C-alpha cells in the first residue's frame, strides 16, 4: 500500500512538473517540487525512504530529460539521505521546519548543479544566476512546500494508522 501510494506521488509529481507547472512559471522559474517531495519523505520517514524516493524521482528525470543516466539520481539520493538523518529529532506536525529545510535543500541542490555543470564550463556570472534563478526558485519552492507537505503529512498519518492496525502494534 505504502509503496503503491509513494509510486503514484512520484509519477504525479513528475507529470505535473514537466507539463502544468510551466504555466505558472514566474520569470522562467518553476518551483522544484521534486526536492520538496524528497525532503518531505526524508523528514517524515527517515533517510532510507528519502534516498529511495530520491532514486526514483531522479531516475525519471534522467530517462526523459537528462543526457546521462544517474546525474539527477545521484543528487536526489544524496539529498534524501542527508535530510533524513535528523527525522527523529523534531516534531513533524510543525510546518516551519519543513519549509526552512526545503528552502535550504533547494538552494544547496541548485547551487551544486550550477557549480558542476555551469561553473566548470565557464559560466562565471554567479550573481546573475543567484538573483535570477537560485533565490526566486528557493522562495517559490518554500511557498509550495506548505500545501505539498500538508498532503504528504496527511497521507503518511493515514498510512501509519492503517499499518498500526495491520501489524497490531498496540
Amino acid at each position, binding site marked *: 500500500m505504502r509503496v503503491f501510494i509513494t509510486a503514484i506521488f512520484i*509519477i504525479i509529481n*513528475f*507529470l*505535473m*512538473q*514537466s*507539463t*502544468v*507547472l*510551466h*504555466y505558472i512559471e514566474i*520569470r*522562467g*522559474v*518553476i518551483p*522544484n517540487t*521534486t526536492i520538496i517531495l524528497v525532503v518531505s519523505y526524508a523528514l517524515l520517514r527517515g*533517510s*532510507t525512504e528519502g*534516498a529511495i524516493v530520491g*532514486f526514483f524521482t531522479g531516475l*525519471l*528525470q534522467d*530517462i*526523459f*530529460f537528462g*543526457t*546521462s*543516466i*544517474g*546525474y*539527477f*539520481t*545521484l543528487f536526489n*539520493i*544524496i539529498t534524501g*539521505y542527508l535530510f533524513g538523518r535528523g527525522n527523529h529529532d523534531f516534531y513533524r506536525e510543525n510546518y516551519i521546519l519543513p519549509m526552512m529545510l526545503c528552502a535550504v535543500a533547494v538552494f544547496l541542490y*541548485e547551487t551544486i*548543479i*550550477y557549480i558542476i*555543470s*555551469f561553473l566548470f*564550463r565557464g*559560466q562565471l*556570472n554567479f550573481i*546573475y*544566476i543567484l538573483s*535570477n*534563478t537560485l533565490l526566486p*526558485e528557493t522562495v517559490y519552492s518554500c511557498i509550495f512546500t506548505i500545501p505539498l507537505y500538508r498532503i504528504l503529512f496527511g497521507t503518511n498519518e493515514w498510512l501509519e494508522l492503517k499499518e498500526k492496525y495491520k501489524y497490531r502494534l498496540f
Partner: protein
Amino acid sequence: MEFFEEHKKQIMLATIAILIVVIFITYGRKTKATFVESALGFVITPVQELTTNVGNWFGSKIDWVRNKDNLATENEQLKEQIALLEAENKRLRKYGTENQRLSELLKISQKYADYHTTGTQIIAKDPGNWYDVFLINKGRDDGLEANMVLTSSNGLVGKIIESGDTYSKALSILDSRSSVPAMSQRTEDLGVVKGEYSLMNSGLCRMEYIDSEAEIMEGDEIVTSHLSDVYPPGIAIGRVKEIRTEANGLTKYAIIEPYVDFKHLDTLLVIGDILQQNTQEEAQ
C-alpha cells in the same frame, strides 16, 4: 530489512559509486532509448500529452477572454497582411521556377533542397530551471531518429537528441549545450549560434566566433550554414540584435533574436531524410 538498516552507510556509498560510474558510461553517447525507457515512455508520455493539452486548452481560453476586444482589429490587419504576402509569394514562386530552370541550365544542384517533413507536438518540458529540453509525441515508430532537425513555421527550434519508440527527446537552440553552425544571409560571415543560460529566459541566444573583419550588422538575418553534418543549410534562425567585440579583440559575438517564440511553441515540423537526399543528389 535488518541487513539494510545495519549497513545503510555502506549501501549508500556503493550506490553513489555505481551511479558515478554509470554517469560517465552513459554520458552523451545514447541516441536510442533502451527497451525499458521506451516502455516507460509508452506509459508516461500519453498522460503528459493529455495534461499539456488540457493546460493549452485553458491557456487558450484565458487568452481568448483577455484579447476578445482586439480580435476584430487584429483580424483586419492580418487580412491585409495576407493579401500583401500572397502577392509577394507569387512573385517569389516565379523567381523559384526561374532559379530552377537556370540552375538546370548550368547543371548545378539546388542549394536549398526540399525535405520530407513530419508534424509533431511538444508534450512536456524539462522540469528543472537549467536546461531547455523537451519531449515530442513521435518516435522511432514514425521514423524519427537522433540528429533530425526541428523547426516551426518561423525558423529553427532544435534537434532530436534521443528517440524512443513513441516519443523523442529534443534539445532547443536556447539550451546552453546546443551549438549550431550559422552564417549571416547577407554577407555570408560564418559563426556558431550557441545557447547561453543568462539569455535563455529572455528567449535570445549568442553567435560566437565571428571574424573581427566581418561586415555583419544589426538586423542581419542568420541562417544555418553549410558546415554542419546535422543541420541542413539555409534554415532561418533569427535576426542580429546586437554586436559586440570579444575582450581579446580578435573575434566578435552577436546577440541573436530567434524568429521562433519559444514561450508559445506547440506544433513543430521534423525535417527528415536529409542525408539520404544529399547522397542521392551526389550520386546523380
